[in-house]
């Protein structure tokens, strides 16, 4: 009985969804609602107003700055939730844990990881700093830094990697995404505009493009570092959970 009811419900949902999909405008239709309201203004004015050659970065950080600030806060809250449940290591301590894995990582894997991780981090720095010109940006670059440290941790273990990125370094940087966003927003108010105004109206017109570009890059760096540290901290506290301390150096 339960099965029949759920199957009927799923079938009804499928019919509804397919009906909606059939009524959607075709892909690339210039008359579709997504292309007639706000997008033409973005495409025409983004270059002039945000000084970011990559329009997507201009939209994310400038026109929809409030959205991005909320997303950054959500990521920070995810870290806060994980730390509230799993706890953080004691200040300044680095624990070693008994290695429970049955497969030891071989010299070949270790050498390959040692060789590739610097290049991955270099690529992420490029992604962060080049974000307003090419695809990418703070969040993507931060995720790539996090992924590189995750590779390092899975091969070398928690002890080695938390020596590389100790808590001292992670703790102040975890909130940097939210902090830089708020600081830049308030700086916009100091400069005479509204909250999150990048182009300060009170300064000379000739200086405005430079201010906008540098503030955008500052926000990208903040989001990148903050995101990376959040990912690394979540991974460390998840790996630490339930392990027995072998040595306390």
């Amino acid at each position, binding site marked *: 009985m339960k099965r029949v009811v759920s199957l009927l419900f799923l079938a009804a949902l499928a019919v509804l969804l397919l009906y909606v999909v059939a009524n959607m405008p075709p892909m690339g239709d210039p008359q579709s609602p997504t292309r007639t309201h706000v997008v033409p203004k973005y495409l025409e004015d983004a270059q002039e107003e945000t000084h970011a050659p990559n329009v*997507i970065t201009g939209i994310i950080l400038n026109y929809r700055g409030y959205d991005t600030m909320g997303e950054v806060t959500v990521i920070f809250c995810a870290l806060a939730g994980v730390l509230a449940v799993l706890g953080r290591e004691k200040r300044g301590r680095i624990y070693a844990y008994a290695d429970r894995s049955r497969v030891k990582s071989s010299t070949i894997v270790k050498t390959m990881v040692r060789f590739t991780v610097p290049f991955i981090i270099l690529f992420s720095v490029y*992604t962060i700093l080049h974000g307003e010109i090419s*695809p*990418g*940006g703070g*969040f*993507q670059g931060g*995720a*790539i830094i*996090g*992924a590189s440290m*995750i590779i390092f941790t*899975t091969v070398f273990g928690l002890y080695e990697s938390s020596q590389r990125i100790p808590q001292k370094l992670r703790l102040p940087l975890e909130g940097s995404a939210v902090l830089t966003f708020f600081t830049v927003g308030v700086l916009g108010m100091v400069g005479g505009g509204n909250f999150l105004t990048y182009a300060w109206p009170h300064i000379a017109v000739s200086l405005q493009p430079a201010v906008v570009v540098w503030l955008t890059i500052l926000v990208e760096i903040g989001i990148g570092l903050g995101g990376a540290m959040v*990912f690394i901290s*979540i*991974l460390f506290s*998840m*790996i630490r*959970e*339930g392990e027995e301390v072998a040595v306390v150096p």
Partner: protein
Amino acid sequence: MGPALNIILIALLVITALTATFSRDLLAAVIIFSVYSLIMCLMWQRLQAPDLALTEAAVGAGVTTVLFVVAIFKTRRKEER
């Protein structure tokens, strides 16, 4: 070339999604899910959203996969009936 590749990618998406859902071995499900993320990344690129493709490749295929693997390592590998 274009439409055929689209159809192949969407078929692979459906297959990997179903396999990941019905697999009893959770580790296999996680690995298949990361394959799903990679195919999704190709789809974003084909839909001309390179920013989303970068995010999907880094977060979907990289970070979440490892977090799931760590969670499985801390608990049990097989799904209970």
